[in-house]
């Protein structure tokens, strides 16, 4: 797998995330909330790869999410593409932040991603989305992102073939993303 390109590596990371989601996280529900690793990955992908790579990686996460959820097909693709793009855009504005600050930003972005999903649900008049406990889901997702960000950063760096220390100009460091 070491010689594989970013597309194959990203696909592998997404498959692992889906298996972890369905096989593990769907059964462990802190505060009654299921943590969606694809939202966290979309954020990490955007933060590591920049807005362009983030949009694509987020899109991949969204497509994978659409395949396993019963929400309208394309909804997760739309939301996670935007999440990946926005994560990249925000990180590009503040490229030289420390690891802790990055984790905190990722946490806020992940919580914001849940808000964006709820907003899309509201636009599509999906009562089961708008009537879900959005604030609780956003808080738990944010905390989960804070705790797992180092691992997710490492996974997305490997997937997108990004050298660890260069984060100042992510667009120029992501190859083929």
């Amino acid at each position, binding site marked *: 797998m070491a010689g594989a390109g970013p597309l194959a590596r990203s696909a592998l990371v997404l498959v692992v995330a*889906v*298996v972890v*989601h*369905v*096989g*593990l996280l*769907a*059964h*462990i*529900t802190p505060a009654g*909330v*299921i943590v*969606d690793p694809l939202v966290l990955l979309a954020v990490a992908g955007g933060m590591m790869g920049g*807005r*362009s790579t983030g*949009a*694509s990686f987020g*899109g991949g996460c*969204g497509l994978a999410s*659409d*395949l*396993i*959820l*019963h*929400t*309208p*097909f*394309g*909804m997760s*693709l*739309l939301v996670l*593409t*935007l999440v990946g*793009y926005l994560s990249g855009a925000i990180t590009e504005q503040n490229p030289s932040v420390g690891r802790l600050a990055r984790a905190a930003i990722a946490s806020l972005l992940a919580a914001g991603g849940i808000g964006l*999903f709820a907003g899309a*649900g509201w636009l*599509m008049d*999906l*009562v*089961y*989305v708008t*009537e*879900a*406990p959005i604030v609780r*889901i956003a808080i738990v997702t944010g905390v989960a992102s804070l705790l797992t960000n180092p691992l997710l950063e490492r996974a997305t760096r490997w997937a997108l073939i990004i050298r660890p220390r260069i984060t100042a100009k992510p*667009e120029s460091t992501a190859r083929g993303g």
Partner: protein
Amino acid sequence: MARRAGIRRRTWLRLALLVVTAIALLTLDARGSGGVLDAARGATQEVLGPVRRFGDWVTGPIRNAWQGLVGFDELETENAHLREELAEAHASVLRVGELERDRQELLGLLDARDVVRAIPRVTARVTDAPVSNFERTILLDRGRRDGIREGMPVESGDGLIGRVVEAEPSWASVELLTDPNFDVGVRIVRSGDGGLASGRGPGRDLDVSYIELETVVIPGETVVTSGFAGSTFPAGLLVGTVTDVEPDAVRGAQRVTVHPAADLERLRWVQVVLYEPDVPEPVIVDREPTDSPADAGAAGDQS
């Protein structure tokens, strides 16, 4: 500078392409023409089925142990509550018997065959809670191979819980009756008046509309499915009990609130009622070829 502008343009193009693709997929899905999408989703669920079951098997003991640790106080409260309920149940046995007699009598009066008991059922296990916080369905470990089809009613030992919305060879998903999209024709047993029960969201009671103002409805009355012609639900499935009645003079009807009989929060085993409604055969009208003068004239003009 030009390179940066190029990168920016490419980024915007990529984003636009992804957003347009998402909107196209949403449109296809909304129009119900997403056969390929449904097939892809079905295949993914089929592949992930064993993963879900394995995860459930592995995490089950851990979850139970955790529940035992953190839920001890809750368990004690629940025990006390259950004891109270048991006492109430003993007291209401006679009343239940009376209601059942009422139900049978009413079904007889309405000439609605009480087919409920005769319909075969498939017992299925609820494989897991949903995989998302925004999911509105539960999954069963039985599917088309066991005779389950879309639209079939699903009940627990206590009453109706929903309907099958998707059936694949080895699994099926069920829309719960509290879902805002869920509607079912119902009948209030004592009065025999019919209405439409609709879900109002998880944890909330059902709303029954179209009950006439003149009908006397008393809280505590039993509500069953009406099984009108073409309905995917047979007559006589227990839905719940009336908890509130509110006259709506503007609409000229009563708004009746019904508490579902089944506990939708703790579903482990359910039964799919293998009921397929009698669909009236299509009437085929043989049309004799008409040789009206107008037709002949038109044919002559064309030639």
